[in-house]
Structures are given as structure tokens and as C-alpha cells.
């Protein structure tokens, strides 16, 4: 009944050899075409032979295509076995075996011979995944590995130049972070593991070759070493080194398997923590770049700005303002305030692009239409319809008045606060940038007498929801009324007043980014104080 297998056929099934669950392939006549290592151990039959019960069940498989039934067999050694056949068109069949969990010699057992390996692994996974802090994850990994898998454990971080960083832990002790100038090649198998290659069996590694810098203080002589890669997301997350004290012999095969399963979980947890910390760092970096500048008095004009970021953490991006001082005191200072549609990192990236592009276009700031046309071109993309709205303000002092050229691009027109308390809207109107084939704008010029101010604001101010019902928008009328009370106030006081009123309106409500910028002509008699270096020198 036994027949030898044809090598050509056997190769097809080679990938199944290391299947963690037993699987065997039987040919049309019941000959064994292939069996995984675990199936060989389960069936306990001489190489190339098939147990009688299995061969009979195989030959009894229905030939008419009806689904076969599960075969149950009680083996004197292995106990209950369930065999699930998958017949193939040529009369052969793949047999999958299900055996009671923890069957000796078939499935990997836990270190130390306990029978709770899956339970232990689940518990360790939970511990490893309980933090997104890279150091905490590595500390948990070495602490638990030293407790359950070896006498001491070391997790080596992925290589960076000639300095090796790792965390060590003695069984029952506390993890220690170590940094040494050393070469990972000094530890057999470590350089390979750090590149993600499969582990080298422990019995191949000479424990006496372990360099002392790797061994935790107070460990004594190393008896056996196991080096396992920590698989990460795409790139290796490091390597796990398990050390056992002298006298224990090398790690048995099933404990190596368990160590690999533990390493897979530790690697995934460490990798997730690394990705998270990288993302957090990128977000921080972008946020730092987005912080608006502190505004001041430039060339005889007062500038003040206020920015209140959205309370939603995932809503970064949004509003921005900048002031680019003129090269000489008689030139035009370009101020701008804008808003990018959408939220999150992509909006933040677009905000950066808008600000940088406008910075580069400063030499053309005489012609607002051209600046907006070029900015529109620079932002246009077929990938998305995210856009920016903004107001450009070219500001120049003329005697005791301030001339402001305003160009809106899809943005609320600025309001002008006169000394007598009148609030007027500037008449500028234009299209958003970044999404339409052409950008258009109508420029409006406003002259500010001493004590008068021009207020640029984002729609986060007018759309702030709150009030008695909590659902009503602050609106342009309330903003206009608020500004009527601000006649003659310095620029900074107007910003604070608007911020205070919107904050009171919102109370605890959620809100978008809110930005406001005030450009003001200093009141008469204050020129020397607010003017800047030129006036001081005069």
C-alpha cells in the first residue's frame, strides 16, 4: 500500500512542509504525495506510508462530486483526530487534520513545558499593545521575555550607524536602556536578524562568543543564545536576543517556535509605536510651522493678530496670517489672512504651500491680480478640490494716513472701523484659489485716517456657533456691531475685543479655527511711539 513519491509532484507541495497544522496530500490510489512535518509526527507512520484508516477513508471518498464527510479516528498515542478531506479533480485529495490543542510533539508547546501557550501569548500580546510609547513597548517585551522565555532578554533597536541601542532585562528584574559603540556583527546572527532574516537555530550559536556588552550586568556565564528578528511593518523593528544561563543546553525547537511567535507580536507592537511617534513628530513639526507670527508696528502702521485654533485635534490646518514687511520704510508691506478648506495634515500641507508660494511672489505684490493668478496656478491639481480663500492687503503709510489695497479671493471682505464708529465693508470680491481654471479679483483701496482700522477675519469668527441656543452663528451683523464699539481703539485692543466676544458667544462649544488681523493707522501724536526705528532716529 505504500508507494514512493515522485519528486516532481512533491515539490509542488513543498510550501506546506512547515504548516503549523498537520496536512497530507494523498494521490488517486492512496499513495502519500506529501505530508507536512507535523503530519509526519501525527501519523507516526514510516516515511512515505499512509496509516490504514486514512488510506481506507481516502479510497472511500465520493467520486461523484458530493461534499465528503469529516473522518474521525482515535489514535492510541495522539488521541482523537479529525480529518477533513478536500478532494481534487484528479482523484487526489488534501487531508487537513485537527487534533486536540497542546498535543505533545505536534503543536508547539510553551517554554518550560506548560500547556497554556496560547493563553500566555494572548496575555503577552495584550501587555505589548497597551502602550504606543516605543520605550514602554520595548521594556514590556524584554521584561516578559525574560520572565517566560529565558533567564535574560535583550531587544536591540534597528541599527543606526556605529551605535547600538538596546534594552536588557534579567528575569524578574527591571529593564535597562543601554547604548554602546559596537558592531552588531559581534553577536552571531544579530546583524542578520536586524535585517529581518529568519532566526538561526540556537544550537548553531556558540554562547561563549556572546560579547559582554550585550549581557545584562550580574548574569554570569551564558549557556545558550537565541536571536530572533522582530518583524515590523515593512521594515524590521529590531531583534530579540534570549539568553539562558550555563547548564541548560540549547533552546528546544518548540521553544524557538514560541519565541518567534512572541517576537512577531513584540515586533508589531514596537513597529506601531514607532509609526505613531513618527506621525506625532510630523504633526508637531507642521503645527509649529503654522503658528502665526507675532505682529508689531511696521513702518508707521500698527498690525495686530489673534488666532484661536480649533478645539478638534484632528482639525489642524485651517487659518493662517502673515505680514511681510516692505524692504524700505516707504514701500508697501504685504499682509495676508487666509483659510484652507478641509482638515488635517493635508490641509496643513496646503497651508504651508500657500504661505511659501505667496512669500516667493512678494516681488510681484504690486499687482494683486497677478499674484492670485500665479498662486491659483501653483495650487491647481487634478487630485483634489481643496482650495484656499484669502485676503491680500498691501499697506503703506502716506503722511499721517494709511493706504490699504485689499484683494479678496473667495474670502469675506474686510471691515473698516471709522473714528466716528461707522463700520463699512470693503468692496473687494474675488474667487477662491486652487481649484478654478482662472482666479479673479476686484481690488479695493481704503484710506485709514489716524485711529481708524481695517479688520481682516476668517469665517471661523462669523460661523462660530453659540449664543443662547448654542446653535446660532455669531454672524457678520454681530461682528459689525462689536466693531462699532471699537472706534479709536488700538489694533491690539480690537483683536482682543473680537476674541473675547466670540469666546463668550461660543462658551464651551466646538469651533473651527478663528483668525483676526487688524491693520490700523496710529492715532495722532503716537507716531514716535509706534513708528519704529526710523522715527526714533528722527
Amino acid at each position, binding site marked *: 500500500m505504500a508507494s514512493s513519491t515522485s519528486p516532481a509532484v512533491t515539490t509542488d507541495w513543498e510550501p506546506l512542509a512547515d504548516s503549523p497544522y498537520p496536512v497530507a496530500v494523498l494521490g488517486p490510489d492512496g499513495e502519500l504525495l506529501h505530508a507536512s512535518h507535523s503530519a509526519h509526527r501525527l501519523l507516526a507512520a514510516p516515511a512515505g506510508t499512509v496509516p490504514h484508516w486514512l488510506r481506507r477513508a481516502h479510497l472511500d471518498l465520493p467520486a461523484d462530486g458530493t461534499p465528503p464527510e469529516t473522518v474521525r479516528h482515535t489514535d492510541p498515542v495522539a488521541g482523537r483526530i479529525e480529518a477533513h478531506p478536500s478532494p481534487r479533480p484528479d482523484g487526489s485529495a488534501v487531508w487537513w487534520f485537527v487534533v486536540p490543542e497542546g498535543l505533545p510533539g505536534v503543536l508547539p508547546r510553551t517554554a518550560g513545558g506548560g500547556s497554556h501557550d496560547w493563553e500566555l501569548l494572548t496575555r503577552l500580546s495584550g501587555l505589548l499593545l497597551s502602550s504606543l510609547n516605543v520605550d514602554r513597548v520595548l521594556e514590556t517585551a524584554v521584561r516578559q521575555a525574560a520572565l517566560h522565555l529565558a533567564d535574560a532578554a535583550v531587544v536591540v533597536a534597528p541599527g543606526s550607524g556605529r551605535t547600538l541601542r538596546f534594552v536588557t532585562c534579567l528575569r524578574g528584574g527591571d529593564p535597562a536602556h543601554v547604548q554602546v559603540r559596537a558592531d552588531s556583527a559581534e553577536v552571531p546572527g544579530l546583524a542578520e536578524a536586524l535585517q529581518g532574516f529568519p532566526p538561526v537555530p540556537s544550537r548553531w550559536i556558540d554562547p561563549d562568543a556572546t560579547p559582554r556588552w550585550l549581557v545584562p550586568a550580574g548574569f554570569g556565564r551564558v549557556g545558550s543564545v537565541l536571536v530572533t528578528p522582530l518583524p515590523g511593518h515593512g521594515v524590521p523593528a529590531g531583534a530579540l536576543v534570549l539568553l539562558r544561563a550555563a547548564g541548560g543546553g540549547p533552546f528546544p525547537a518548540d521553544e524557538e517556535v514560541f519565541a518567534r511567535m512572541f517576537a512577531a507580536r513584540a515586533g508589531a507592537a514596537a513597529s506601531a509605536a514607532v509609526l505613531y511617534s513618527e506621525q506625532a513628530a510630523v504633526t508637531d513639526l507642521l503645527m509649529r510651522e503654522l503658528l502665526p507670527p507675532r505682529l508689531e508696528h511696521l513702518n508707521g502702521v500698527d498690525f495686530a493678530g489673534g488666532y484661536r485654533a480649533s478645539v478638534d485635534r484632528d482639525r489642524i490646518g485651517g487659518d493662517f496670517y502673515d505680514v511681510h514687511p516692505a524692504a524700505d520704510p516707504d514701500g508697501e508691506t504685504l499682509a495676508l489672512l487666509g483659510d484652507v*478648506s478641509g482638515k488635517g495634515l493635508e490641509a496643513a500641507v496646503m497651508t504651508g504651500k500657500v504661505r511659501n508660494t505667496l512669500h516667493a511672489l512678494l516681488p510681484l505684490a504690486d499687482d494683486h491680480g497677478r499674484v492670485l493668478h500665479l498662486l491659483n496656478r501653483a495650487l491647481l491639481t487634478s487630485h483634489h478640490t481643496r482650495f484656499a480663500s484669502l485676503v491680500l492687503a498691501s499697506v503703506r503709510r502716506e503722511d499721517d494716513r494709511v493706504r490699504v489695497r485689499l484683494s479678496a479671493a473667495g474670502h*469675506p471682505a474686510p471691515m473698516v472701523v471709522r473714528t466716528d464708529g461707522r463700520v463699512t465693508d470693503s468692496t473687494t*470680491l474675488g*474667487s477662491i484659489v486652487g*481649484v*478654478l*481654471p482662472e482666479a479673479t479679483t476686484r481690488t479695493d483701496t481704503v484710506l485709514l485716517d489716524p485711529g481708524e482700522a481695517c479688520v481682516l477675519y476668517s*469665517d471661523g469668527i462669523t460661523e462660530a456657533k453659540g449664543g443662547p441656543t448654542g446653535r446660532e452663528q455669531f454672524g457678520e451683523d454681530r461682528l459689525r456691531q462689536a466693531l462699532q464699539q471699537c472706534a479709536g481703539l488700538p489694533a491690539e485692543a480690537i483683536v482682543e475685543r473680537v476674541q473675547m466676544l466670540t469666546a463668550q458667544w461660543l462658551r464651551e462649544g466646538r469651533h473651527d479655527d478663528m483668525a483676526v488681523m487688524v491693520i490700523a493707522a496710529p492715532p495722532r501724536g503716537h507716531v514716535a511711539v509706534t513708528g519704529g526705528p526710523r522715527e526714533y532716529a528722527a
Partner: protein
Amino acid sequence: MSTSPVPPPRPTAGPPRTATVPVEGELDHESCGELLRAVAAHLAARPRVDVVRVDCGDMSLCDSTGLSALLQVRRDVDAAGRRLLLDRRPAHLERLLRLTGTADYLLTDRPD
């Protein structure tokens, strides 16, 4: 255009060869994906439809992400060679289209 012996199937709602996508409530960050999916489904599933109507009658708010979605709808409908109509526009939407300078782009027929 060729004549076929069997008359083309009539869409279930609205005048012939028109698909209507209603927008109810706030068109914002959370709901704009739904609008884009609905339009894409009409464009894909009903090749005989040549006018996509977005019914804005029950739209209570349109924020900047909502506007961004309408602009994307315009691009998608243009790319598919159909016409887009924004119907029953509430005052707040009219105001937004005027403020952002997008009215001409969104409301005029695409040049053929």
C-alpha cells in the same frame, strides 16, 4: 443618433434622462463623501442619464468642505460628459457661491 426598435428605459424619478441627488441637512466634512458616492453611483450605473441634478432645497448649511465636494462633483460630471445642475439653491448657498467666486464655474454649462 441611431434609432432602436425598443424605447430606452425611463428613469424612475424626475424627467427622462435625468438623475436627481437630493442633499438634506448640512453639507460638510461628514456628509460630503456621501454626495460624491451618490453622484459616482449615478454616473456609473445609469449611462443613459445625461443630466445630474443636485437638489439643494433641503440643504441647511454648506461649509468649505461642502463647497469642495460640489466642485469635485462638477469635475466628475464634466469628465463623464454630462451636465450638472444645482437646483433649488437656498440663499446661504447663493451667498457662498458669490463670495467664493464659484457661481460661474458651478452654474454655467460646460463648454462643448
